[in-house]
């Protein structure tokens, strides 16, 4: 079943990190994603809000594998249109097998032709979210038109889940091992983890994304599993304190582009 694919994604991220003698990071996830999906490029963008209570969500390409993909990702946020923008706004994947067809050009009149001009025919955009809490987005750019095959689509979604955990950990300064990462990523599919996140958000007056990061940091610091701590929080056996708050949390959800690491967006992982 897809379980195997899920493990395969983590193996690919970790293998890449090991080859550099480094702990697994967001950068490795972006690189492994582009490789495993045979993409011309992959980009992870951070989300932030222009103002509270509006739909004014903007993104900033943070990690780009492939210079063209990085440019096109940035172009979307400049234009305010594109699959990545729609994926962030709707908290839903936006899968575009052919950017040259009429429906794509009709939906993104400026972006779609620009992408085709740059030799990109298909784009698959995935929100990186915990529920409706938007952390960022994953954009996968392909030179050939065509749908992502089922297993590749499942893998791309697992990569987006991996990026959620890696982004939260990066924010909190956690450098976890692979088993811990995999376990945490799977836990973020569990109902009680999200119930606990909601409770922590109410306890500490945090946005959901930061509440999840706090829960994760609390578990990590004590060598516990996220799922266990979440069960304790829901049962009211554990209550998080302000000391569990991640060191750098943005005022309104997600990670602010200013304190995220590495800095200057978009930075390319591999020279083209």
């Amino acid at each position: 079943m897809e379980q195997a694919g899920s493990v395969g994604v983590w193996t690919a991220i970790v293998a890449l990190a090991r080859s550099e003698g480094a702990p697994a990071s967001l950068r490795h996830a972006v690189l492994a994603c582009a490789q495993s999906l045979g993409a011309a490029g992959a980009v992870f963008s951070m989300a932030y809000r222009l103002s509270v209570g509006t739909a004014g969500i903007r993104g900033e390409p943070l990690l780009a594998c492939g210079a063209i993909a990085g440019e096109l990702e940035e172009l979307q946020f400049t234009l305010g249109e594109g699959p990545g923008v729609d994926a962030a706004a709707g908290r839903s994947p936006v899968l575009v097998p052919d950017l040259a067809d009429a429906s794509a050009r009709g939906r993104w009149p400026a972006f779609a032709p620009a992408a085709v001009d740059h030799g990109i025919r298909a784009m698959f955009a995935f929100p990186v979210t915990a529920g409706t809490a938007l952390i960022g987005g994953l954009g996968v750019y392909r030179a050939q038109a065509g749908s992502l095959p089922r297993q590749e689509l499942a893998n791309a979604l697992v990569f987006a889940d991996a990026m959620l955990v890696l982004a939260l950990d990066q924010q909190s300064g956690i450098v976890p091992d692979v088993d811990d990462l995999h376990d945490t990523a799977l836990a973020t599919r569990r109902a009680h983890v999200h119930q606990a996140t909601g409770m922590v958000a109410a306890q500490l007056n945090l946005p959901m994304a930061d509440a999840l990061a706090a829960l994760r940091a609390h578990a990590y610091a004590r060598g516990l599993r996220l799922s266990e701590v979440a069960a304790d929080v829901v049962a009211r056996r554990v209550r998080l304190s302000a000391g569990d708050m991640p060191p750098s949390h943005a005022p309104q959800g997600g990670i602010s582009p200013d304190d995220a690491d590495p800095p200057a967006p978009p930075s390319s992982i591999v020279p083209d």
Partner: protein
Amino acid sequence: MAATDRQVREAFIELTDTLVSDFDIIDFLGRLATRCTELLRVTACGVLLADHHGQLTLVAASTEEARVLELSQVQNSEGPCLDAFTMGVPVQRGDLGDGDPRWPAFTAAAQAAGFSAVQALPMRLREERLGALNLLNAAPGPFDSDAVALGQALADAATIGILHQRTLARQEVLAEQLQVALTSRIAIEQAKGFLAERLGIDVDAAFGVLRRYARANNRRLTAVAADIVEGRLDVGRPQLPDVATGVRPRGRGHRDRVPLCSARTRRDWT
């Protein structure tokens, strides 16, 4: 069978009516669960969809939400829904009290939750497997074969309804739609936790508050949950001022804030 022809006909019409512009998959599957409990006279019904990790996730349930949720999580390692999903056939156990060697952990969990009989129905169309429907009864005894056939027909209608969207639009729509369902479900769980903490109640009671508010205001569960987690909905408790002062969410000055607990008051006005 207890259900009248008219009720059955209406249920089918409802479950194939997916081509509306404001289609909401959580609402849709919630209606499937409700219709199943009404028409099949079962105690509870849950709708489980498979995510991209191959994990079955509860996305909607009849009123017995809490008990069904727990049983859904167990079924990622063993249980009738996992069997129905992987094999694509209905799976039944009329009396869990006898024990079932296939699923010792599920059987124990189901009994602890007060269920004695279980029926799982696959949600699939040819090779496309979406998930499974979980029917649960408090009283032991085999499920009526007519009821099972009707349940499978409802599950099929709902599956076709979801997939139908795809054939009319693009192949990609199904994947997008399923992700929306899973994401919305997470927001609902977050909102349950948030409400539970603010109102000093447990998460199941919080779900009741959420659902009643959504119904009283004729709004979608998903939309109300999103408003709560994003701080657009006041979760104060006006009748308890000492609590209310401590519960203003984040105080970021949203102009369109609506007190959650005024739901009852509003209904009384109309």
